[in-house]
């Protein structure tokens, strides 16, 4: 088990390193001249920049050195938690992100819980009900949920609940009530995805012969559904949890912009506006870290949930 753990951890680190490398390639190799982009702050024509200032920037970021040296230098600093300084205000990237992170975690956490409860509940109800029309009606909802642009849903919620009915605050970070609308906006597409996946998995599981065995025992339908079908149906959906959480995290860019909330998403949006490469890279690597960490956790938990998957196979003849 210990060996498995170590191997799995090393794999996670390797993926992170590769994600860092991809972000380096995209952000530093794709543009013809990252320095002038940064000096320019993404605004207007490029020739307004003083050549001397360019050279200074170049030296500061090490762009006068060969690429491979730049890469190794930056990677070395990133390993020590140093992702460079923001072009906009000169603050270290890690500090910028760390200050904004709690707001985003709060929002994303709330949204995730909402998504799981609503999505899971919908899938359960749709497959459990004996009324066929109800099941079909419920299952018609998730496809709609994934089709709505979330920024638009956010604006509609603001328009109705804040401006029209004046129930909840439209913008800002003030207290729990300001969390509701953005969290609902963020949760909606994810809840729809969870409902779709889980309902599909539940349907397939309910057709398994072992569910028939359970029914033939004379168990109550709720017992069959929860103790036999649900437990098995959840397993395949767990494998996408990294993707789901990553999606919610990235969704903060749009949602925080719509609701003018402070947070990592908002920082990202402004960083892209200013072509603030170090900050963007920091957020991309953070996104990969979230994905990798969730997947690692699921992988380590999986053997506890599914006895067929064990680190050390112990099948008995």
């Amino acid at each position, binding site marked *: 088990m210990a060996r498995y753990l170590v191997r799995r951890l090393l794999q996670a680190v390797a993926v992170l390193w590769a994600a860092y490398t991809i972000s380096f390639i995209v952000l530093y190799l794709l543009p013809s001249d990252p320095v002038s982009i940064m000096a320019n702050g993404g605004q207007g024509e490029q020739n307004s920049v003083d050549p001397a200032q360019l050279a200074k920037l170049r030296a500061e970021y090490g762009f006068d050195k060969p690429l491979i040296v730049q890469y190794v230098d930056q990677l070395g600093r990133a390993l020590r938690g140093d992702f460079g300084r923001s072009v906009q205000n000169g603050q270290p990237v890690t500090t910028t992100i760390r200050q904004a992170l709690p707001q985003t975690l709060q929002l994303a956490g709330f949204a995730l819980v909402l998504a799981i409860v609503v999505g899971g509940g919908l899938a359960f109800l749709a497959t459990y009900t004996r009324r066929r029309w109800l099941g079909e009606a419920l299952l018609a909802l998730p496809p709609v949920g994934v089709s709505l642009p979330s920024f638009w849903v956010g604006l509609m919620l603001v328009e109705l609940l804040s401006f029209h009915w004046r129930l909840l605050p439209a913008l800002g970070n003030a207290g729990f009530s300001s969390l509701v609308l953005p969290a609902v906006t963020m949760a909606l597409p994810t809840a729809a995805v969870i409902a779709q996946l889980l309902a599909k998995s539940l349907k397939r599981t309910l057709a398994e*012969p072992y569910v028939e065995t359970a029914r033939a025992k004379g168990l109550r339908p709720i017992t069959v559904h929860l103790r036999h079908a649900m437990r098995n149906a959840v397993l395949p959906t767990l494998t996408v949890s990294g993707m789901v959480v990553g999606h919610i995290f990235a969704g903060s860019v749009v949602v925080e912009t719509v609701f003018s909330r402070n947070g990592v998403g908002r920082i990202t949006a402004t960083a892209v506006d200013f072509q603030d490469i170090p900050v963007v890279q920091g957020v991309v690597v953070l996104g990969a870290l979230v994905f990798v960490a969730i997947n690692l956790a699921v992988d380590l938990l999986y053997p506890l949930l599914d006895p067929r998957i064990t680190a050390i196979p112990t099948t008995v003849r």
Partner: protein
Amino acid sequence: MGETAMTEPLLRLDDLSVSYQTSSGLARAVDAVDLVMQPGEVVALVGESGSGKSTTAHAIIGLLPGSGRIDRGHIHFGGRDLAALGDRGYRSVRGRQIGLIPQDPTVSLNPVKRIGEQVGEVLRAHGLADRRSARIEAAELLDRAGLPDPLIRMRQYPHQLSGGMRQRVLIAIAIAARPQLIIADEPTSALDVTVQRQILDHIEELTRSAGTAVLLITHDLAVAADRAQRIVVMSRGRVVEVGPTERILADPRDDYTRRLLRSAPSLAPARAPRARAVPAESNTPLLVAENLVREFALPRAPGRPRTIRAVDDVSFSIGRGETLGLVGESGSGKSTTARLVLRLTDPDSGHIRFDGEDVTTAKGQRWRALRRRAQIIYQNPYASMDPRQTIEEIIAEPLRVFKVADRSGRRARARTLLDRVALPESVARRKPAELSGGQRQRVAIARALALTPDLVVCDEPVSALDVSVQAQVLELLVELQADSGLSYLFISHDLAVVRQIAHRVGVMRAGRLVELGFTADIFDAPAQDYTRELLAAIPGQRYAK
């Protein structure tokens, strides 16, 4: 009914009809079925796929799949009409009064729950035990079902048990609440023959001692003959014949029953193996396999070997115009041997000589040349055909690959081949999905014959087919051999089938060829214990005695 029975029957189906809602309207699966079972009686419900036997069983226990519905009729059981019972009422019947032994034990246990829990659950659901006593009783039930070390097994998960052991767990679940009726739905068709017999023996023993009635659903008339007091034959949703087992077997009155009886290979031991001359020994056999070995890597795990020998030092030869049967249970290495012979996988050691030429390491052109002379027919004909091609394209593909004839020539040849396997020309433009199982296997045979090969390897060619279709396909294979002097390597788990077609038989076990000899010798005077065990497991022998 007019007869004044002394006792009320345990189960009485009255004019039972069941339909499924399909995309093209209602499809009746069970049509006006009447059936009476007395307490403690063993009745076999026999029929081929689509006969409605499984639907009947599921209707009785109230577990019709989603689109299935009882149109009319009654299911009288224990003084109640189950057909009119709601789900709540049914719960006290299922598991408590009627137990179910399902078809495929490998998928019928919940993979994430411990064995003990799954057995104890029945007792707790019906208030026959609490959490603690359920554990104790579960162990005892597993013991009665013949599972060794029940206390250890209870704490294991299904994937840690073999198929036979899992079926014993399911038997324990079925008998747990001491029901008056057990429905056994093809309880052994997914298991190896030797295990099949043990399981059926055990079910018989348990139910006889407890006086439980058994409704045995089976496609195998021989199994029914061995186990049941009465046989009910179903076809296309209707009961075509009912009667005591002896009468049905000795004096079948319905045409369909007669046909079924004629087709069942193991029920005709009196019928001599086809009187065909064993081909004269020619100087060089067509195919010689010498000391073939093939290993597969196992997933790495401590305390377990790295590889498994799927084929272990196997040697044999096949003469021209001869059929060599290879029999064995699953995992015996017979299919791997077939693929080695065709050079679809490479042996780790050993030699294969085809028509005197060593083809063990043939590559490129020589490998392709071998393809013209040795072909294969698969167990599942549907899987072996590209679903997008038409039948004509499928049959003509070998010709196209070897650039034999032009387009119209190939088309003509495909029609000739269809004719040879007794299929109408009209199927040429159809897709595989539009054909029945038997028709598809004929197409597969036609494709194998397209290049007029010398050897055809048949890998379980009839085991996915209904018995009556089985017999027709076997007959076709024999005819083709008589016409053109083909050689067959015939792989099967079914000894009774092999007996009908093979000149010589090889018995495989755990990768080794344990016995090889003339068919008559193997069946009448087997030299090995394992062969004797296999022979004893062929159903239908009790009746024969």
